[in-house]
């Protein structure tokens, strides 16, 4: 952990900021465009949760794999997934990362070992464990990161998969992003107040930490780096639970604090913990020139995202005869 005010540390913090800003700006642009009704698929935005994606992916090496669930834009982008192919997928175009067959909930970019996100809560967890199992069998040094939300820990699949990972001491990091809600259902109606998810994991023989600040990106990085050190030394899986908050509605581009399942007060409290603002304050303490830096980065990302969106809008739809391609890999 680079805690000092060295130029190296300042540069690193700016890099983290820049990564988060890029994801935020991409999603904000998608939010603006969504009402054009050209992205004709359900979209689950990650705005407010970028620090976990960035903090985790910063610790990864090329051979490490990432898998995720339905809210996966930030994970895909933080891992270095191709932006144009992601946006093409949202627009249902042939050049989409899943050829338009998956939509926003099925992102993949094998070139950076982002092996896939799927849309059934907890459904990807065993697949990630299987990839970790394969790594172990192949004696590969690659690890696996599985991102999921708080509700996934309520599924039997989480328990079954975590047990298997522990049993075989697999190189996998379970990252639980606890954003307090599953669609509109708050934690209180889903989990006992006495329950601690990290203790659940610990009881299965997994090193685990809970209650971590998921909006403080250097803190996320630090927790994950230490977890990855442990995983890479073949001790077995690690479970980390980060607290965070989803700013927008469960699915779609709007704010929905008015419909009654959460309060505006709660939202404002979390908004004050905006991962970008938290980091910006820290950068400003350490050095001057932050505004100029932000402006330069903003311009850069604005042009990148505009270009990707124009590109997606102009890209061709898949030809009708491709609809049956890929149902089976075998010929005939």
């Amino acid at each position, binding site marked *: 952990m680079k805690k000092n005010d060295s130029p190296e540390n300042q540069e690193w913090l700016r890099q983290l900021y820049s990564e988060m800003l890029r994801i935020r700006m991409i999603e904000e642009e998608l939010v603006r465009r969504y009402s054009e009704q050209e992205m004709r698929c359900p979209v689950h935005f990650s705005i407010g949760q970028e620090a976990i994606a960035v903090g985790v992916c910063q610790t990864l090496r090329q051979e490490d794999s990432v898998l995720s669930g339905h809210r996966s834009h930030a994970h895909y982008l933080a891992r270095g997934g191709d932006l144009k192919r992601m946006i093409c997928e949202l627009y249902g175009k042939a050049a*989409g*990362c*899943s*050829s*338009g*067959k*998956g939509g926003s909930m*099925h992102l*993949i970019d*094998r070139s950076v070992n982002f*092996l*896939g996100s*799927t849309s*059934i809560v907890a*459904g*990807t*967890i*065993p*697949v*990630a*464990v*299987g*990839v*970790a*199992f*394969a*790594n172990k*069998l*192949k004696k590969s040094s690659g690890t696996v990161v599985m991102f999921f939300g708080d509700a996934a820990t309520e599924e*039997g*699949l989480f328990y*079954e*998969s975590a*047990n*298997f990972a522990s*049993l075989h001491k697999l190189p996998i990091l379970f990252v639980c992003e606890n954003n307090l809600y599953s669609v509109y259902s708050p934690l209180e109606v889903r989990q006992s107040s006495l329950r601690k998810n990290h203790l659940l994991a610990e009881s299965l023989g997994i090193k685990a930490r809970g209650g971590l600040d998921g909006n403080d990106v250097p803190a996320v990085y630090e927790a994950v780096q230490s977890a990855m050190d442990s995983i890479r030394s073949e001790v077995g899986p690690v479970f980390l639970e980060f607290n965070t908050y989803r700013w927008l509605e469960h699915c779609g581009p709007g704010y929905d604090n008015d419909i009654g399942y959460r309060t505006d007060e709660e939202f404002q409290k979390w908004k004050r913990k905006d991962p970008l603002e938290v980091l910006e304050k820290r950068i400003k303490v350490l050095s001057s020139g932050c505004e100029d830096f932000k402006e330069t980065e903003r311009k850069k990302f604005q042009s990148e995202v505009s270009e990707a969106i124009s590109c997606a809008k102009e890209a061709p739809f898949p030809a009708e005869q491709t609809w049956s*391609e*890929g*149902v*089976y*890999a*075998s010929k005939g």
Partner: protein
Amino acid sequence: MPAKDNDRLRRITFSEAIREATVQAMDGDDTVLALGLGVTDPKGVFGTTLGLKERFGEERAYDIPVSENAVTGICVGLAISGFRPILSHQRADFMLMSMDQIINNVAKWNYMFGGQDSVPLVIRTIVGRGWGQGPQHSQNFQAMFAQVPGLKVVSPTTPYQAKGLMAAAIEDPDPVIFVEHRWLHGQVGDVPEDNYSIPIGKAHIMHEGEDLTVVTSLDMAVEALKVAEKLESQKIDIEVVDLCTVKPLDEETILNSVRKTGRLLVIDSSWKDFGAASQVTALVAENGHDHLKGAIRRLGLPDIPSPSTPALSKEYYPRAKDICLIIEEMLGKKINMSVFEKAKLPHDVPDPFFKGPF
């Protein structure tokens, strides 16, 4: 590869044929793994996985936690990482715990990511029958799996088919649900010693005939063949088509047979309604209607769970006499039932060697 003519044939059981195909596939390809509850235990899934751990080591043959759903997803992870897992379930009924992973991930992974990662996975699902297996140890879900795009469903009847179709299923780039019938495990037949595969999606004409086509599979194929052979002496000429693969259905062989005979009886090894027999019936009704001389008939299990007690299970599974009664009606001919010797075996065992317990 197809079996060679000069291959040495031995008479072995269906279970030995499954085991031999597995051993030969694991010998030939290091990425083939065998896992499932009991795969390495002393009984070895009815003998089908015996010795795999000793021969290939703990890194290739696994017993698993009783977590069918997760292990199925884990197999997807293995498959997209270059492995070819064979997952065994000692009863089809246990496999229901993994329907989420089978339908949402196994069947769709290749399609939903635009064809980038196929899932070469064999899921063996063993269907129980007899000895009081009852409502939760005897169900055959072949049609449920066949309904899902992305899955293939094979159902071998003879030891020869079992070995060849298992080899084909392991080689296949797509997920294959491999339906095994518990009553067939003890069946003995000629099987080549060498490795060979039988193409998935091809039905087998077990018995040629001109008067009536019976389309069937698994234990019912054995029963139908018995009927066809017995009726030869009465100049009743039955063609028995064993599906061997439920999906993709060999429509051509079925339609060709119906074109020849003009009459179709479909016998389902599972429930009669909404099943594979219904699919075959629909196929012929839609595409072979002009060749039919009479209504298509179906036979299969009643719309009732399988009762455990022998008192109630006796009439549950169709037998030769039930098949003959329908054939009589369809052909308008009387069948001399005395050719069917009075059964020497109790109705709830497949052979004299079957002593339970499961």
